[in-house]
């Protein structure tokens, strides 16, 4: 088994896809010769030649061409360097990619994969710190996953590229060059979907996704921590069953609270009629723009201590 960083794990998965699936293409801004601004696609242009290439700074053309190429039998894997940049070209995801299969009455598909990364990192400005998964999760027709470990980065990337639906893989730059971990790189391709139980516990069910999952795993005493690495499809049954058992629900995400996907998780659980021992809790960034100064950003983004406090507080209530 190989020890890989998160970035190396994505790279290994991309390499395997390019190797095993002749229809795959990999492209985006600085993705080819330079190997990606975060080094994630390093070496792949060298290895796969013109199937891995650089593009102009034209997100609409990048995303739209990926949709078009996918409609014509390719499996493009494109990169949107920061999820914030989707906003100059969201039409190609929401009005184009999402409609291909449904509107063609199932006769055409668009099996493209969009890699992006998001969230705050120290010093990042408001235009480079957003967590936009809620936009994609409100868009029927799009699959979404969010790995936070090297193994998941590998497995989910592989599953996404093999998936026949337009799929967005949301990475996180603060994880790219973190500690290496042993990663199984020769396993079966997994189907999309599923979650990861990161901790056992019976006091509270904590649902979380993305980089903040690492903080939650550390913070959540005596809680069942469910990292929903796949957000669409979402593992509703498993989450609801867990809350039925613990009677308490906390959802933690880095996206700002109002309109975040945490609301959907809370809504589904209560709609299912689960009896709760205490009101559910969402732990999220308050509804603000993200300020660049780390002291300011840190005052808004939940850390291990505040997450732990909120969870034990929930465990004690009701």
């Amino acid at each position: 088994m190989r020890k890989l960083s998160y970035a190396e794990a994505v790279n290994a998965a991309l390499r395997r896809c390019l190797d095993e699936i002749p229809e795959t293409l990999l492209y985006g801004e600085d993705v080819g010769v330079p190997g990606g601004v975060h080094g994630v696609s390093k070496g792949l242009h060298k290895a796969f030649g013109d199937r891995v290439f650089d593009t102009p700074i034209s997100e609409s053309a990048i995303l739209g061409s990926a949709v078009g190429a996918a409609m014509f039998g390719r499996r493009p894997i494109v990169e949107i360097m920061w999820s914030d940049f989707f906003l100059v070209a969201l039409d190609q995801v929401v009005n184009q990619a999402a409609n291909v299969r449904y509107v063609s009455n199932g006769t055409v598909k668009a099996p493209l994969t969009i890699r992006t990364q998001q969230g705050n990192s120290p010093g990042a400005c408001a235009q480079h710190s957003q967590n936009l998964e809620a936009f994609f999760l409100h868009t029927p027709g799009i699959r979404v996953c969010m790995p936070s470990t090297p193994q998941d980065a590998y497995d989910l990337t592989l599953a996404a590229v093999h998936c026949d639906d337009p799929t967005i893989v949301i990475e996180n730059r603060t994880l790219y060059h973190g500690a290496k971990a042993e990663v199984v790189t020769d396993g079966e391709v997994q189907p999309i979907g599923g979650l990861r139980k990161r901790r056992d516990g019976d006091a509270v069910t904590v649902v979380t996704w993305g980089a903040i999952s690492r903080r939650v795993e550390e913070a959540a005493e005596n809680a069942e921590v469910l990292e929903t690495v796949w957000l669409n499809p979402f593992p509703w049954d498993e989450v609801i069953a867990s809350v039925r058992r613990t009677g308490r629900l906390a959802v933690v995400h880095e996206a700002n609270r109002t309109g975040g996907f945490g609301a959907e998780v809370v809504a589904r659980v209560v709609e299912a009629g689960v009896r709760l021992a205490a009101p559910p809790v969402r732990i999220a960034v308050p509804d603000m723009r993200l300020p660049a100064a780390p002291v300011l950003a840190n005052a808004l983004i939940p850390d291990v201590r505040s997450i732990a406090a909120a969870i034990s507080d929930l465990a004690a209530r009701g």
Partner: protein
Amino acid sequence: MNTLLDDLHQMWRIRLLEEKVRELRASNDIVGSVHLSIGQEAGPVGACSVLGENDALFATYRGHNWAVARGVPVEGILAELLGRATGVNGGRGGSAYFSDFAHGFHGENSIVGAGAPLAVGAALAGKYDGTNRVALTVFGDGAMNQGAVHESMNFAAALDLPVIFVCENNSWSELTPIDEMVRNPILAERARAYGILGERIDGNDPSVVRDRVGDAIEAAREGGGPALLELMTQRLVGHYIGDPEQYRRPGELEAAREVEPIAAATRKLREQGTSQARIDEAESNARSEVEDAATAALQAPLADVSTVKEHLYA
């Protein structure tokens, strides 16, 4: 055989389909907003005659003309607009967003300019799948000011992709004249910005379109990269059915009717000495095809509600 006469027949197929659509919209058999292509028949007839089977075609909401010229059955189009199960998309696409891959029509698009990036992708795919596919995307004059079209032209140019960008300049963007929305009214000149071929041509003469688009396709297929062709034409009807057209300029429509493709082709054929009988036949054959298609489409069952939730995901 007489190409111009064939072209006239093809143009009548479009014209009469659109007349039928207008009739069915008036009777509310078709609902919602419908954008007719009456007056813009020559471009699609000329261009589609030089598109190959593997080539891609992306049009807009004003795409009935391109669909017909590409070979999409008239009955499938009418059934689609009528919301029937036998429509090319089972009623899911409608007048402004239908497609028919089986017949090489890769879709209308109701977002201005959004078809261009898709066409770039179709051409990109052709670089790897051995088809040497050329992709043609058509849009209007107003779409030239949309960011996605700009990005697509440069992207295709930088990657030497065989994409033919066809701008149907009918001088209006909805209710607004293009000449007031740009400083340089010759949109084809934008091609220079991208280092690609750009030409403004007569969009009312199918043979001119056939030649110029044909050359551009050939050059693109040989690796010459994309081209931008500006087809000068006119919309003889409203932007949408029901458009009061208060914006028309004095004498505009009268002048347009003189040069519009069917009038022009008919005149030319007469000059060439083609018999009135054969000219009439071009129309009458088209008329019976459209009438039969309409009858069949109207008899088809409505879109199947029981399947409405199918095919969102694989």
